[in-house]
């Protein structure tokens, strides 16, 4: 049996992963995608592992996807969401987690609005930590599933031209995607209103393009991001309508381009703002494939991390 080990015992961010780590996760995801398409989709690997899903921020896809991945691996799971918990009584993150760990939990999937929350916990608790999104910082499993989806759709990632379009400033998906795709040899251009593009982003080896028409013409894959109004303390653009008319992607626009472009979106979509309904539902869109792949990729991450810890 070939040996395969990640270089880390926690998944905090793509930044910490080696190229070999990412390739191992993608290769293992492929095997799990086969598993979740079997008549019986469950394997017993994590039957002795208990996982706490701790979501201090809202989530639909990521939470359900992790939960399903854990169940498919036969793990025992407990779910925690901050609304309706003692967090509202003033309990700190560390205290909340320590109390849950006292119930003998092996892994924690953490989503939190504070940048560095997963890193903070990983330095203080014994359980393995998987970052399911920390503020505007990283969302590693989303980047891994996006990379897996690109590989699935195009057959390769190296030299693939990927446009990341939208609210780059507030997007952990953008940052994790940039780290991941650059490590795998893709070429990236980011596009959005100048107010939503962080200064010095070129230092991450990406190019900035302010014209959505030009960036669409250039790319093989467009990863379209949501405008994260919940994280905005200022007015970054005049109105959603104006944003849609300058940066929104419609099916007409896609059809006018030479060559087929692949459209991705991490969800949730604001239909009619960054992406029109007919573009989101077009044959170019692999948005629902991303969701399917998300379960396989999260199974691979959980399996490979559990693989490192002796029971």
């Amino acid at each position, binding site marked *: 049996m070939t040996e395969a080990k990640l270089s880390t015992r926690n998944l905090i961010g793509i930044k910490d992963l080696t190229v070999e780590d990412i390739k191992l996760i993608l290769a293992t995801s492929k095997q799990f995608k086969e598993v979740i398409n*079997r008549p019986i989709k*469950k394997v017993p690997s994590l039957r002795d592992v208990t996982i706490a899903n701790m979501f201090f921020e809202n989530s639909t896809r990521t939470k359900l996807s992790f939960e399903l991945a854990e169940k498919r691996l036969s793990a025992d799971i407990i779910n925690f969401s901050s609304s309706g918990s003692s967090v509202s009584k003033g309990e700190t993150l560390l205290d909340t987690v320590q109390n849950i760990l006292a119930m003998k939990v092996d892994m924690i999937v953490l989503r939190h609005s504070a940048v560095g929350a997963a890193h903070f916990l990983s330095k203080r608790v014994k359980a393995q930590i998987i970052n399911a999104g920390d503020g505007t910082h990283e969302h590693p499993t989303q980047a891994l599933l996006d990379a897996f989806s690109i590989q699935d759709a195009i057959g390769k990632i190296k030299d693939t031209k990927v446009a990341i379009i939208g609210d780059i400033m507030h997007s952990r998906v953008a940052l994790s995607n940039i780290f991941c795709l650059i490590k795998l040899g893709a070429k990236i251009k980011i596009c959005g209103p100048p107010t939503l593009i962080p200064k010095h982003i070129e230092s991450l080896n990406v190019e900035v393009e302010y014209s959505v028409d030009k960036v669409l013409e250039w790319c093989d894959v467009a990863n379209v991001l949501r405008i994260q109004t919940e994280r905005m303390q200022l007015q970054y653009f005049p109105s959603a309508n104006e944003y849609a008319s300058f940066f929104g992607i419609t099916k007409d626009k896609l059809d006018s381009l030479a060559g087929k472009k692949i459209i991705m979106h991490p969800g949730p979509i604001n239909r009619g703002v960054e992406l029109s309904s007919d573009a989101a539902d077009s044959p170019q869109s692999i948005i629902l494939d991303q969701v399917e792949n998300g379960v396989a990729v999260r199974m691979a991450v959980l399996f490979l991390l*559990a*693989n490192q810890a*002796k029971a």
Partner: protein
Amino acid sequence: MKKKGKVLFNTDQLKRTIDRLCFQIIERHEDFSNTCIVGIQSKGATLADRIFHRLIELHGSGPYAIGKLDITFFRDDFRKDNKILRALETDMNFLIENKKVILVDDVLYSGRTIQAGLQALGNFGRPASIELLVLIDRRFNRHLPIQANYIGLKVDALDNAYVKVELNEVEGQDRVLFYDAENVEND
């Protein structure tokens, strides 16, 4: 591992043994319309592929389907020792519901791989029956009550002896080597 090992099978002997196993399968199955063959990754899958094609040559027809099964996600030693496991491809484009399955592996030792294989097969339906074919049966080393239906060669040896199956598709030549306890030296 030291390179000095006793040759149990050379190319010709292996070919004759596979032929014998094929005739035994034909004897029991005759009509293959309800029989499929599944090899455990990786050497079992290579052997299954050979047997599948040889059956067609010898009998004119063979099992209705052939599959590769990876058992990594079903292993009972996951997280039990320091071994890190890497999953290989599973390629099963058919269901085994009410079918006769011939499960193939290279060496039957503790029986744990086969136990995991039986569990993994369960993901693809409830078969009518499962038979086990192994090239080498190390019958004195079993940890579980598992026996093979078709056996290439029985090898009686101590626990720390080692049997290595080399196949043309992987190592570039066909042979089975036996290293006794004194000759086994881990790298």
